């Protein structure tokens, strides 16, 4: 049976299951409406306690950061706030999703999630990044992307990128088992390496070794001539395990299988005929039967419920700041989802739409649940828990978002964009060629990214988790604060130059309400309140000349270093 018809069957089953619930007759309901309905239905008193939908400014900043990794330009903010078309939010979402900045940002998020900032050693970072960027540009279905990663061995010199997942984990069977399970099955089964999980009945030691049995015969082979590392495999090797909880336990073993599924027995091969290429010194062996090859299509498949759920939950958590199953790698019966029906629906619909990532992000962004304000009305005195999704959660900017937003706010990015746009146009004119709109935008974005990405390095080194660790939810250290307070990487952006933020502020001689408006629109993507205009007026006082310029810098710094700037809200 083909992949596709398999999937259709599974979806049919999933849809049938959903129809058995009160969803019947709602098949025409768009997903974003179903999200709102199921979120509200799950929590008694939700409507009374939920934050209203965010105002335009908060929505604009949030969706721009979530989808493109940076704050909106002043130009876009002004235009969006002035626009009174009823469909302007939908149009904005579509524009953002079609932008090269979105492609870059999504690729980068996937990079961090899949590789956890490991050093690129055996596969070049550029090859991996280009694999991910190509995938986000062509909106490769999520299952296909995962299969590409899981099937990669690095043999094809033109397609080394996806093999980085295995190779830069040094082919280590335990690391790979743990990460494949946590990332693609939503199950952190690391504990089950030594014993059945003491409190999580779903994760057994047999599940752990069943998954690791796919990888146990694989290893990193480095070609002695080319020095190129590939992920090779032998025809023999079994997992052995015994629980440390059971006294005098005997060694057990298992053929490969997905957690909770039937073992896949190795085919019987005639003795001596297990290899296409026999192992020898400096020779990459090729087995007749590959255990690892059995994995991708089984794991990254619409009919694999764990995979569907983990996939839908991952993108939900990226947008909402919290998984429906939370944490996202703890999908088991003792940690039930906050909204079981919603998760089932998202998983089924994501699969039914061929794991179309852009579609899923769009539907989530269109939902009122996503668009709720982060501030509760004063009337709500006993807020619902975070898991109710009644209020937008504060998401700390990632190191990349922070670095980029700082450059956007201070006007560095806009200047670079203008210069690179001109450079691309000049290049095209010289070559007497033209580019389509999308290709042109990508060409400009590529150059802007190359020019500015160096600025993100400091932010990554200070704000990101150590290599091999997941980025923490939020932490604030003294080192970071001292950097923001005193480092030239921040303060250096606050010298007037060209049309940057400080130059514009200096140009607004004497007009504190205009200064406040420019400042708040550029840095916080909203208009200031009267109180805030008064703050600006007081801060500037009657200072003139250099003293005034210094105070303008301090004002801009105070906004950049504020909690409001630090979070997606």
């Amino acid at each position, binding site marked *: 049976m083909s992949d596709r018809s398999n999937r259709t069957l599974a979806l049919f089953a999933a849809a049938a299951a959903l129809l058995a619930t009160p969803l019947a007759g709602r098949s025409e309901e768009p997903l974003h409406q179903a999200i709102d309905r199921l979120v509200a239905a799950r929590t008694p008193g939700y409507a009374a306690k939920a934050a209203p939908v965010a105002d335009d400014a908060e929505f604009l900043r949030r969706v721009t950061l979530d989808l493109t990794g940076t704050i909106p330009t002043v130009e876009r903010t002004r235009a969006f706030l002035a626009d009174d078309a009823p469909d302007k939010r939908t149009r904005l979402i579509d524009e953002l999703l079609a932008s090269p900045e979105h492609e870059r940002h999504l690729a980068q998020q996937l990079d961090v999630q899949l590789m956890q900032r490991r050093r690129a050693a055996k596969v070049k970072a550029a090859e991996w990044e280009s694999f991910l960027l190509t995938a986000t540009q062509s909106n490769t279905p999520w299952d296909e992307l995962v299969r590409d990663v899981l099937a990669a061995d690095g043999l094809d010199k033109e397609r080394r990128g996806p093999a980085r997942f295995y190779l830069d984990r040094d082919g280590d069977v335990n690391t790979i088992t743990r990460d494949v399970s*946590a990332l693609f099955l939503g199950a*952190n*089964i*690391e*504990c089950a390496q*030594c*014993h059945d*999980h*003491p*409190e*999580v009945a779903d*994760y057994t030691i047999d599940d752990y070794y069943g998954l690791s049995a796919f990888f146990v015969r694989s290893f990193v082979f480095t070609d002695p001539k080319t020095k190129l590392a590939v992920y090779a495999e032998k025809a023999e090797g079994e997992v052995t395990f015994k629980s*440390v*909880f059971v*006294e005098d336990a005997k060694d057990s073993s298992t053929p490969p299988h997905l957690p909770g599924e039937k073992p896949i027995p190795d085919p019987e091969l005639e003795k001596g005929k297990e290899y296409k290429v026999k192992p020898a010194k400096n020779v990459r062996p090729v087995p007749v039967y590959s255990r690892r090859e059995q994995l991708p299509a089984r794991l990254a498949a619409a009919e694999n419920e764990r995979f569907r759920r983990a996939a839908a939950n991952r993108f939900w958590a990226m947008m909402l700041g919290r998984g429906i199953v939370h*944490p996202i790698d*703890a999908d088991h019966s003792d940690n039930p989802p906050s909204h079981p029906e919603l998760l089932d629906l998202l998983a089924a619909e994501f699969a039914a739409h061929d794991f179309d990532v852009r579609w899923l992000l769009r539907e989530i962004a269109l939902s009122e649940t996503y668009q709720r304000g*982060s*501030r*509760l*009305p004063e009337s709500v005195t006993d*807020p619902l828990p*975070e898991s109710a999704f009644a*209020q937008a*959660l*504060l998401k700390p900017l990632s190191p990349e978002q922070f670095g980029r937003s700082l450059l956007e706010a201070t006007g560095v990015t806009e200047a670079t964009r203008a210069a690179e746009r001109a450079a691309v146009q000049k290049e095209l004119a010289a070559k007497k060629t033209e580019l389509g709109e999308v290709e042109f935008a990508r060409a400009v974005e590529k150059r802007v990214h190359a020019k500015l990405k160096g600025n993100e390095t400091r932010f990554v080194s200070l704000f990101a988790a*150590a290599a091999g*660790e*997941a*980025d*923490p*939810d*939020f*932490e*604030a*250290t*003294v*080192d*970071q*604060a*001292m*950097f*923001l*307070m*005193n*480092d030239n990487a921040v303060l250096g952006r606050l010298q007037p130059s060209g049309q940057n933020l400080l130059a514009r502020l200096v140009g607004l001689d004497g007009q504190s309400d205009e200064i406040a408006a420019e400042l708040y629109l550029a840095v916080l993507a909203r208009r200031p309140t009267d109180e*805030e205009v008064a*703050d600006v007026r007081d*801060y500037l006082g009657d200072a003139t000349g250099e003293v005034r310029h210094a105070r303008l810098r*301090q*004002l801009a*710094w*105070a*906004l950049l*270093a*504020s*909690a*409001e700037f630090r*979070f997606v*809200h």
Partner: protein
Amino acid sequence: MFNRGTCGSAEHVSRRGFLSGATTGAVSALGFSGMTKVAGANELRSQQKRVVLFWLAGGVSQLETWDPKPGTDTGGPFLDIPTSVPGVNVCELLPYTARQMHHLAVVRGVNTKVNDHGKGAYFMQTGHPQTPGFEFPYLGSALSSLLVRPDNPLPGYVCIGGGGSAKESSFLGPRFVPVAVADKPPANMRIADGLTAEEDARRRELRARIGDRFAKGRRAATTEVYDESFDQAAALIAQRDVFDFTGIPDSEVDRYGGGEFARHCLMARQLVEAGSTFTKVTHRNYDTHSENFNFHVEQLGEFDQPFATFVADLADRGLLEHTLVVVMCEFGRTPRINQKMGRDHWGTAWSVALGGMGIQGGAVVGATNANGTKVVDREVHGGHLFHTYYRAVGLDPTADFVHDGRPFTKAKAGSEAIEEILA
């Protein structure tokens, strides 16, 4: 049934969960709201309990230090010498330290059964054998988190002579990760060029005001952590001189015996005097698989005088009673001398020295047999030592850390403090 207590991940907790939870908890628990009113240095000096760990990386030989066996098949070429404590002898390579033995206690019956650098270092610094999938906090993070006074702006855990890893603080979070110091304070530990202290305070005040408005009606826990980090930074900047070691005079370095380790001991003294909670001073190169004796002459020649002078100085200045001093490493070295005149890894029968706060100076506990091949009296491991450190500084080692509502043992269950050396 296997003791489940040793697998810390009773319910699987991702590292991300640890960090996030701990950050909020750890930082706000410090109550930094009063940060601008940093207590005077003198007050801190009298109230802050401190710990200094001397980490002899690679594994110093117990036979060439605390448990000499001269004249036996394993003893090597060195003699033992009397110390300031009648009846207690140490190796002749520690003449200066010998004169300070009345401040120090020696535990001679350490058996950790671990002969691996990584695992030994982990056991000795966390009080637990290594367990896959879970990180216990290291001594520096654990003790600083419990001892640091709320108004103390200095980092809890400072490293000299080599940095530690951010992982050491585990679920205790970023406030207690080891901070490495060098000769000068870090570049950003100063008010930026072109700003007066007054302007700096003013801009921070405005920053905080914008944050307060933002926090209203929102879930404020994380924004508080962020805001506190700026207050902490400002308080730390005000104390930057503590991290400026350029003023240590050459004459003092000479009095400490000269050399890099002497300088490091003086840096530690400066930190202790300023009220820094936990200081780790690393001295490297003890992994003497060959030429053990020549190497120990050299290594201990670097170590002895600076360390002894440090202990004497702390005692003279009235600081030793507030400061626990520990000298340890990942394991000892084999009594058997190998073909290259070396000694190999040996976790079976070795020694740890400690002194100062809560420790009975001059005490010796535990013993090895005549040629040092096994412990014959009062056998202990890293767990017992951890209980002892906690007790010495007045903490209860049996009270669990509670993280995310789950208890985590501070020191290995089933072991207890070494009462004989506690004051």
